[in-house]
């Protein structure tokens, strides 16, 4: 009888313990078991170089089969206008044709600038954490991707992204977002948006490279990331970012 109760007790401790153990064996741990990757991709953005031409947005939509309507985009450019009375007006330059005048006249304007936005390829990505089926994942080279064959279209990742970088692809009915043009960068090419930028406001590169434009960008600039308080650890870095940018 005593032996029986001993086994009962041991089993009741071992079973939940085992389940907990399985739960905490996270996906990242398994990724680290694989061979060490050579790359760790990131992007640097120099907002003062951006002229708001929107060619990056167009190039991205062409390259990645993004619907050509203003509600779905993998990258976009915001125009900030800070007025003398402290008001901040933000516009998406894609839609500026409708609302050119919103920025006000030159006279009440204090400063104005453009900010290109895209998926921040977070190192601690909330979208990957919440995906119920693991369709959104982080590759060994640091890029967050969506497996469209596995995504069930629950949209939890869209809710979890603090940057509004995700949308539900209207035809595929799966989550979609910037991939850093993964099909290009794995062949040694640049992402489409970086390639077409006429002022080199976007700098793409490998954080692990000893000498690269991205390394130089990091050395020469004061670096900031978007919403650092959320601890998402973005891999899209901004040089001299204005405090008004959200």
């Amino acid at each position, binding site marked *: 009888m005593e032996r029986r109760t001993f086994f009962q007790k041991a089993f009741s401790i071992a079973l939940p313990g085992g389940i907990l153990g*399985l*739960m905490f064996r*996270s*996906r990242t741990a398994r990724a680290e078991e694989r061979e060490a990757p050579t790359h760790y991709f990131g992007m640097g953005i120099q907002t003062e170089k951006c002229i708001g031409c929107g060619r990056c947005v167009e190039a991205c939509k062409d390259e990645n089969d993004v*619907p050509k*309507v*203003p*509600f*779905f*985009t993998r990258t*976009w450019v*915001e125009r900030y206008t800070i007025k003398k009375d402290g008001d*901040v*007006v*933000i*516009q*998406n330059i*894609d*839609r500026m044709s409708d609302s050119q005048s919103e920025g006000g006249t030159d006279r009440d304007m204090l400063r104005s600038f453009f900010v290109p*936005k895209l998926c921040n390829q977070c190192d601690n990505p*909330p979208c*990957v*954490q*919440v*995906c*119920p*089926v*693991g369709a959104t994942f982080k590759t060994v080279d640091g890029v967050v991707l969506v497996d469209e064959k*596995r*995504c*069930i*279209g*629950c*949209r*939890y990742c*869209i*809710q*979890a*992204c*603090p*940057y*509004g*970088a*995700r*949308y*539900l692809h*209207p035809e*595929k*009915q*799966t989550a979609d977002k910037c991939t850093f043009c993964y099909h290009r960068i794995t062949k040694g090419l640049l992402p489409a948006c970086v390639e077409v930028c006429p002022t080199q406001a976007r700098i793409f590169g490998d954080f692990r490279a000893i000498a690269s434009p991205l390394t130089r960008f990091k050395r020469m600039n004061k670096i900031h990331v978007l919403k650092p308080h*959320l601890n998402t650890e973005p891999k899209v870095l901004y040089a001299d970012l204005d405090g008004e940018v*959200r």
Partner: protein
Amino acid sequence: MNNPLFERLYDLLKQVQGYIYPNEIEVHWSILVVVYPYLTGLVAGAFILASLVKVFNVKEVQSVYRLSLLTALAFLLIAPLPLLLHLGHPERSYEIFLNPNFTSAMAMFGFVYAWYLMVVLLLEIWFTYRKDLILWAREEKGGMKWIHRLVALFSNDISEKALNFDKKMVKGITIIGIPSAFLLHGYVGFIFGSVKANPWWSSVLMPIVFLFSAIVSGIALVIVLYMVITPMRGQKIDMKCLDTMASFLFYAVIVDFSLELLDFIHRLYQSEESIKILSTMVMNKLFISLVIIQVLLGMLLPLAMMVMIRLLKVEEELRKLLYFVSVILIQLGIFATRWNVVIGGQMFSKSFKGLTAYKMEITGLEGLLVSLVLLILPFVVLAILLKILPAWDVPKKEIAGEAAA
């Protein structure tokens, strides 16, 4: 552009106030995701009312014990439907069971749901009804006999020992059931409360607020059902039972209200970056659904009525009327609560610089009509369940006879 979705979004674009990120125009979690937490809340609430009888020995509500259990089951069976219909790829939904990502609160759905359905509700109902099923099957002929035999899983033992075992099991399951009911609705709250990107949702209080509003809505629902079904059966409403349920409801509403008030004051006092856009949203987009329906009509008015019933000795007929009106108002209020959480959380931009709009479809898959069907369906299921498993007409003579034998 002939795509109806695009047309709808172009229409919404005109209603955007301030600045929102371009991908934020579409409200991703629509009315169906409002219906889901509303249904699970009713499940958890109805079960907790049932467990008052078994665990806390509240004899007055014994007569609604079975009704509460069956209500919980009927609503639980329908609860996953709105989620399933809302998926972009419902045909892949099984992935959530087969290939869950353990860091996702949503992936836990499969486990929590299966646990609650299989281990808690079905088992408790089976052990509760087993003896009656056997007795009914012995009396009956034809189809119903076989249905009852099948539901009893062909068990035929109603000896003293077996019945005692049933009783012990019911009590045990209820004890597991209470934390499970808490888990069921607490986890739904956690799905929202753990989204750090969204200040309207991100709150440690969220699961607790969800839980208490669930208890409120569940008790209110069973009161409605009791008050409607009893006269339909030609029986008299047991005022002791009704008063007891109403008094539990009263305390639950007070706790729920206090928690929501605490959440409100906390946000206002902390006055974080999001406070400006959230106040604009509450005063513009959510004024009717939050201030008028959820707080005034759904909470303060029923509370005032219940206080009145307690202070003045209101006579029976008026009391019934007041109870009925207040539980209907409470249902409306709790539905508005779910609406304000789910839709409200998507009305403001994560840039905190603007508001988007939501226009509910009428006919589409994510529209009003489908939602209404999903809200009515649990009552149909309940009617069928009550037909197979009557919650009242237990053959008392038979039981007494068997016990004597």
